[in-house]
């Protein structure tokens, strides 16, 4: 499965319209193609990162579905809505990735992503710029995921790497869910201690986003 990761810097006063348009118009339209689904919608919470930064993940079954999606965005049935969403942003960074097969996120295929109401949840998205082969880093994350304990602050739910592999920046992304408010409270109470459950990749540079899912995000 492929993932399109979009980082949106949204105009502050467009926060609610942006969220509403994604939820009520864009995400349902995306699902009209059997090969694409909006997989996740997160906001960087106030107090935890950039102001009015949203992260979306779009799951794409294969490159044929990707080509159809890109055509729909450019001149097809998604074009007007996408233009409307673009106008609500200051900046958009879009990148294409391969989701590791072992990721819990990959378990249900694209059909596993459906829009339902549920409580918000907290996540962290760690982007590791690695100094060795990307495949080795993904394998290391898998090993740590399989060895994880229930007592950890976070649990890994997804891992992805650039579609172009070593031709692109060697960044391995890991999405982890905070297991509970109590775990979060305990982690914040000890600011000198590392959060448990977060992958360790020696020599890698880490950039972290703290994210909160919206109530309708498929990944929650």
């Amino acid at each position, binding site marked *: 499965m492929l993932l399109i990761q979009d980082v949106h*810097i949204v*105009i*502050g*006063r467009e*926060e*609610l319209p942006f969220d509403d348009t994604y939820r009520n118009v864009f995400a349902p339209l995306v699902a009209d193609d059997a090969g694409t689904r909006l997989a996740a919608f997160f906001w960087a*919470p*106030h*107090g*935890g*990162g*950039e*102001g*009015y930064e949203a992260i979306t993940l779009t799951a794409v079954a294969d490159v044929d579905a990707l080509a159809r999606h890109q055509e729909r965005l450019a001149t097809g049935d998604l074009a007007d809505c996408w233009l409307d969403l673009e106008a609500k942003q*200051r900046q958009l960074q879009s990148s294409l990735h391969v989701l590791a097969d072992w990721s819990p996120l990959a378990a249900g295929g694209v059909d596993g992503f459906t829009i339902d109401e549920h409580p*918000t949840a*907290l996540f*962290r998205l760690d982007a590791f710029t690695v100094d060795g082969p990307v495949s080795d880093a993904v394998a290391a994350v898998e090993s740590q995921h399989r060895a994880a304990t229930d007592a950890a602050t976070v649990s890994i739910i997804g891992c992805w790497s650039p579609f172009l592999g070593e031709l692109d920046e060697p960044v391995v992304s890991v999405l982890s869910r*905070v297991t509970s*408010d109590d775990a*979060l*409270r305990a*982690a*914040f*109470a000890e*600011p*000198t*201690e*590392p*959060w448990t459950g*977060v992958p360790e990749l*020696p*020599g*890698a*540079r*880490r*950039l*972290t*986003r*703290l994210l*909160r899912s*919206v*109530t309708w995000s498929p990944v929650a």
Partner: protein
Amino acid sequence: MLYLHQIHELAPETQAAFESFVRDDWLPVVNSHDGSRFAWYGTATSVARFADEAITIVAFDDASAFDRFATAERESAASISLRDRRTSVQTRLLKPIDYDPWTAADTKIPDGPQEGEAVAYMHDFVPPVTGQMRGYIDMMRERYMALSSQELSGIVLRTSWQTVSGGGRMPEMFNLSEIRDVDALVALIAHEIPREYKEMGTWMWEALAARDQWTTRLARSATWSPVK
């Protein structure tokens, strides 16, 4: 007062060596200059946006003290050593805003390292909409600082400074807020702000005219930082 705020980007796994250098070598150099004090050393927490960085704040009594420091250290061996231990640096020169809690509390800076417990902070740089710095300052003074001590008991603003001319890549406000109550931070981060607080005509919506971009770092002071 003037404050030299620097964010030092470090190579992975070099933070401990950098911190030791700053504590043992750089801090005494800073404090050897009349009117200069090394005030604060901050580092990333596990969930900070940028893992490999350190934050330093040096305080100067006035512009003359800043000039003496800069003239002496511009090309010094100590400065070159500091430079060689990092991969890049963001430098800002800041001054306190009139309601600055650090100034109001008459914060004293010890003249050397002080061992104690690390303190967690929300470290914010806020670039107001161009032309709205004064409006944002007024908003902070009249709205935020007017909140009751009970409302502000969990996350407490410790500094509110702004860049001076020549002091940064854009006009910014720097707010450093101490996290005194973890529950307050969890409530802020983990739970969605109700929609009705954000709609047109609300305080949050009005404030967005002055600023809607910022970068928050969840940082902590070093256990030896002169000011925790």
